[in-house]
């Protein structure tokens, strides 16, 4: 190693000399990522596997057939049919039980996801286009828009609980234009939109900043050319802007979608599930509190599969290129480091809970 190091300055800095300077990379590289892999394996990989294993075991409880208290044992797929086919024991789940809430929780979660992400995408693009101009006080506007992002979701939920109180400012302002008053935290439709409004408020700015970063990479001469060719504003937007921000946009949409699919904090605090706003994550927590660890594991595994399947669809067909592998990176030793458009979206999450 030292001999090589002494020789190196004499040589021109060819790739070969550089390679010898970086000898031992393979071992050192693995050594450096080892602590990370250890943390992720213990806290994410092991529990995931464990959850799948215990989802095929019985919850401790009274056996319906014999009336005896049983501790565990193989359950086959009964924990899954409990949720998917609504089977509690031998009959179907009675209304009001946690089991019977599965499809309500599933569809309301999908509803939150589709509506929130659609509104956030449209507003995010609009916000980004407003900020993609040269104006004084640019820093001020960007700072203002970071405020919702920085506020903890739990505090956001409490803040909107106050804003949406019966005597609150939302009903007051709507009353001025002759609407309402709405029962924002108990009426089934109003409660759903209270959650969506709070979610959109908190996460649109982030989406806007990500799209803005994409917009700023579009060279201005493309727009000039379009103007000379007589393109309308709408044509410029649909034929130039949208295709050129597609990748950062799809990454942002992907991560927001996965984020809303596991929504917990907002509905748990803002409505506590009133008016059919219990999300899938809330149902898992309720099931754990009720002591049904094994059926809760089956449900959380279903949530995981839903999210994994959604991510797969986006990456495969939606053009959300989350890991950009430099061309030929596998073969070349001196390949550029991988960049991760995902970084941004990862940071977007309000909590550390992935």
């Amino acid at each position, binding site marked *: 190693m030292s001999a090589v190091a002494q020789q190196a300055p004499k040589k021109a*800095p060819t790739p070969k000399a550089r390679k010898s300077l970086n000898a031992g*990379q393979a071992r050192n590289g693995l050594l450096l*990522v080892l602590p*990370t*892999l250890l*943390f*992720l394996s213990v806290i994410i990989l092991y*529990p995931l596997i464990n959850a799948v294993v*215990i989802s095929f075991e019985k919850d401790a409880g009274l056996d319906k057939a014999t009336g005896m208290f049983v501790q565990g044992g193989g359950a086959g797929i009964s924990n899954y049919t409990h949720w998917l086919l609504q089977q509690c024991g031998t009959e179907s789940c009675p209304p009001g039980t946690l089991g019977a809430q599965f499809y309500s929780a599933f569809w309301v979660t999908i509803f939150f996801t589709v509506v929130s992400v659609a509104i956030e995408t449209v507003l995010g693009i609009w916000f980004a286009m*407003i*900020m993609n*101009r*040269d104006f004084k006080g640019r*820093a*001020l*506007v960007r*700072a203002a828009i*970071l*405020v919702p992002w920085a506020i*903890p979701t*739990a*505090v956001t939920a*409490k*803040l909107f*609980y*106050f804003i949406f109180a019966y*005597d609150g400012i939302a009903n*007051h302002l709507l009353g001025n234009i002759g609407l309402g008053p709405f029962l924002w935290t108990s009426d089934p439709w109003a409660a759903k939109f209270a959650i969506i409004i709070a979610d959109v*408020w908190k996460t649109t700015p982030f989406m806007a900043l990500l799209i803005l970063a994409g917009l*700023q990479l579009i060279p*201005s*001469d493309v727009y000039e050319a379009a103007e000379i060719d007589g393109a309308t504003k709408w044509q410029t937007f649909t034929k130039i802007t949208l295709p050129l921000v597609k*990748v*950062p946009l799809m*990454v942002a949409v992907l991560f927001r979608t996965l984020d809303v699919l596991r929504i*917990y*904090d907002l509905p*748990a605090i803002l409505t506590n599930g009133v008016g059919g706003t219990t999300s*899938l994550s809330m149902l*898992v*927590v309720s099931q754990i509190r009720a002591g049904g*660890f094994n059926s*809760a594991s089956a449900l*959380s595994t279903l*949530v995981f599969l839903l*999210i994994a399947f959604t991510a797969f669809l986006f990456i495969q067909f939606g053009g959300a290129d*989350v*890991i*950009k592998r430099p061309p030929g990176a596998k073969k070349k*030793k001196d390949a550029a*480091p*991988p960049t*991760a*458009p995902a*970084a*941004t979206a*990862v940071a977007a999450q309000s*909590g*550390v809970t*992935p």
Partner: protein
Amino acid sequence: MTAVTAATTRAADAAEAQEIVFKKDTGAKVRMYLGLAVLVIWGLAPAYWMVVTAFRNVGYTFDTSPWPTHVTLDNFKTAFSTGRGNHFGAALVHSIIIGIVVTAVAMLVGMFAAYAMARMEFPGKYVVLGFILGASMFPGVALLTPLFKLFANLKWLAGANYQALVIPYISFALPLTIYTLTAFLAEMPWDLEESARIDGCTPAQAFRKIMLPLATPGLFTTAILVFLASWNEFMLASQFTTPQTQTVTVAIASFTGSQPHQEPYTAVMAAGAIVTVPLIIMVLIFQRWIVSGLTAGGVKG
């Protein structure tokens, strides 16, 4: 360096193009400033409402005047009072302890991995990258049940066992730490490191003495992001904390007032303001770094 010049040129071009547009259409300028006003109101109005309410006498909770009326500091006193089972003051201390430990460990562990990802080639690199990315997409609830059982067996769900939150938080923060740091590290002038190595520094020395000082803005931004993530987490905290480790988000969510079934709005807004305003000030000061940190990996490559 060239990137900076190019960016400046682009900005100048954009400004020029903008001026041409404005000459044509003065309405565009008006529309732009209206749009900017919408953005600022969007960002600030609800947060402003929280702060205004925090200073309002509890008897005027639903006052609708947009400026503070009936100003009082009582709500802050109520927020910190330990009667009625509220422990907001203690929760602040817990959240700060947890946040600092999580940030320190995640940064240290994440830095090793980010350096390897940005600077080294090793077998299985893309498998590791995929694993880290997968970990970041994970639904937290999928881990809740097994972790709950595991921590219950370890007797971590009673008493002052911070590790029941600290260890999961570190794991959840690591993907974010590594991605943000990798993006920052990839943009640094690594020729300097090469020179240091040629001058006889070991790789570790070259990193510590030359590159670390240059990386400070990136490290600092990442640390803020990790601390924020830990500070803001609610779901695990609501399941795994005891009165001795309760965090601020849980304390605020479960805040009870003097009357049953009557939400102590003003006190909750005061508590929310205490939790939020220092973060907002920090975010405003480091706005430029945070925006570049948030979007660093987002669009390049």
